[in-house]
């Protein structure tokens, strides 16, 4: 083996990094297939947060003493690591938020209310998570923009022909599309979407909440104007999200929240804003969480995003080989390019009943509509589905065990 080969993907060693995976409940080993809702945390992340709190904690940006300088350096190092992780041109293009929902809302307020004109349109799709749909409904109602919905095909892929139609009149100001569906696993052709949007004079926002976990993201290669993701799905802590925004947009956008750290100077009646990205980070940021996210990024990069993607592809292939053979099981969507997430339904069991059964077998899956009601309507699955989603610690044996449990479940409700 030459020195450049990726480290072999040592699943046992990886699993040993996640304390919770060793846990049992009612005598059943935990089979955690809900990483798409939120991933488990490796000890490296936990330890980084503990170390911060035990020996390097202070508020950032404000103190001239060494502890605060240290915390500031650590916080800014996290920003730099995020920038490298998604290949942003500069760390100044990275805004920390509370989660990706807040990242999308920041765009809806600062860019939407601040730079779109009433009458311009925002284009989202039928397979958006509510976080990338509700903000545009609210923007429409408050600001008078139009909301256009791009159709998906029956296979669960974005209908690019329809997107072209929606862009044709040149009135779209923003295309806000998921980079990977949290229900179907569909990975969207981001570079192509961006090109189409830009040619029509629109900016483009990708909801990368799922994609950033499963693929190497390169915001420059896809030419994203905005890119959002969330720490807790990337093996990091809750309470921290990321918005990448191009530098010229950050300069042009008015701030979103007002308070400390986002100002240059404050008078009783008038204030001026700090330079980006500080302009968009009001108040004490999620310091400990940024440091945890940094550790999470170090963790996945040590394994390698390519290796993670390959591992998850193998799992998806395995799942698609094993599961469709189960009688009465329907799997939603059939996109060409899909990540480690899929939704399914058993013909004689409601998703809620099914997840209760699976839980008893130790298997954690989500039941319901996964914050994607319209998508479930679109696919004729109004009463919900179960969703299995993979992390880098998921094994093929866990998928086999899921298959076995599904067969038993069908018998149980027969």
């Amino acid at each position: 083996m030459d020195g450049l080969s990726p480290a072999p993907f040592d699943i046992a060693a990886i699993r040993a990094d996640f304390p919770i995976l060793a846990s049992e409940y009612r005598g059943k080993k935990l089979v955690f297939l809900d990483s798409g809702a939120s991933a488990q945390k490796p000890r490296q992340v936990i330890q980084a947060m503990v170390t911060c709190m035990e020996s390097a904690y202070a508020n950032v940006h404000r103190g001239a003493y060494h502890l605060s300088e240290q915390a500031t350096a650590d916080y800014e190092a996290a920003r730099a690591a995020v920038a490298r992780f998604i290949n942003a041109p500069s760390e100044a293009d990275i805004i920390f938020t509370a989660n990706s929902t807040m990242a999308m809302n920041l765009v809806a307020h600062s860019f939407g209310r601040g730079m779109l004109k009433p009458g311009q349109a925002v284009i989202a799709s039928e397979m958006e998570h509510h976080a990338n749909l509700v903000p545009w409904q609210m923007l429409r109602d408050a600001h008078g923009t139009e909301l256009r919905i791009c159709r998906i095909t029956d296979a669960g892929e974005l209908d690019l022909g329809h997107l072209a139609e929606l862009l044709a009149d040149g009135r779209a100001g923003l295309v806000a599309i998921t980079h990977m569906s949290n229900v179907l696993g569909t990975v969207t052709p981001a570079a192509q979407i961006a090109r189409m949007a830009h040619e029509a004079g629109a900016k483009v926002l990708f909801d990368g909440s799922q994609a950033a976990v499963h693929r190497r993201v390169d915001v420059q290669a896809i030419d994203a104007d905005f890119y959002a993701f969330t720490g807790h799905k990337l093996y990091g802590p809750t309470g921290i999200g990321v918005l990448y925004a191009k530098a010229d947009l950050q300069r042009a956008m008015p701030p979103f929240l007002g308070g400390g750290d986002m100002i240059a100077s404050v008078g009783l009646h008038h204030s001026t804003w700090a330079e980006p990205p500080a302009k968009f980070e009001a108040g004490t940021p999620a310091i400990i969480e940024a440091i945890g996210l940094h550790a999470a990024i170090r963790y996945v990069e040590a394994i390698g995003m390519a290796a993670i993607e390959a591992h998850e592809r193998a799992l998806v292939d395995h799942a698609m080989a094993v599961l469709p053979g189960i009688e009465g099981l329907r799997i939603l969507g059939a996109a060409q390019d899909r990540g480690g997430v899929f939704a399914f339904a058993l013909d004689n069991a409601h998703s809620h009943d099914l997840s209760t059964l699976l839980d008893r077998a130790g298997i954690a899956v989500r039941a319901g509509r996964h914050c994607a009601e319209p998508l479930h309507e679109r696919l004729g699955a109004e009463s919900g589905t179960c969703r299995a989603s993979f992390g880098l610690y998921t094994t093929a044996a866990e998928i086999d065990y899921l298959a076995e449990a599904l067969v038993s479940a069908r018998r149980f409700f027969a």
Partner: protein
Amino acid sequence: MFDDLRDLYQEVILDHGRKPRNFRRLENATHHARGDNPLCGDKMDLWLAFNEDGSIADAAFQGRGCAISMASASLMTETVRGKTPAQAKAMGAGFRELAMTGHCPACDAALEEDMERLTPLSGVHEFPSRVKCATLAWHTLNNALDDPGGKEASSE
């Protein structure tokens, strides 16, 4: 594989879940309400018709939901028939207690027999996220009684 779940999914529940009774629109209804469980997106419509003495003459429902919520609605429409609104509400309160704790010490003798019909659902108390499935029908009943016009109920 799931034998220990027979406590939750007793045969009567699976049966009512598969073939809910009174699963129809009630044409002569005077009261209606819609129930909604945001967690799973399940919805149900409940209709009530009354006797001249003010007791419930007929109860029927339509909707979609899991076995627990279908069975609970089905059993409810059967047990409330002939009850006054006050009695039906007392049963609902007792049932919520049952669903949350597994028993209902407060359910007095008058209700005992009817409550017994509902005890197969008491197993949900061990499944916190499923309690709402069981109680949705009873929340919706309360709403139909309080506001015949048909406000939305949620099982929060």
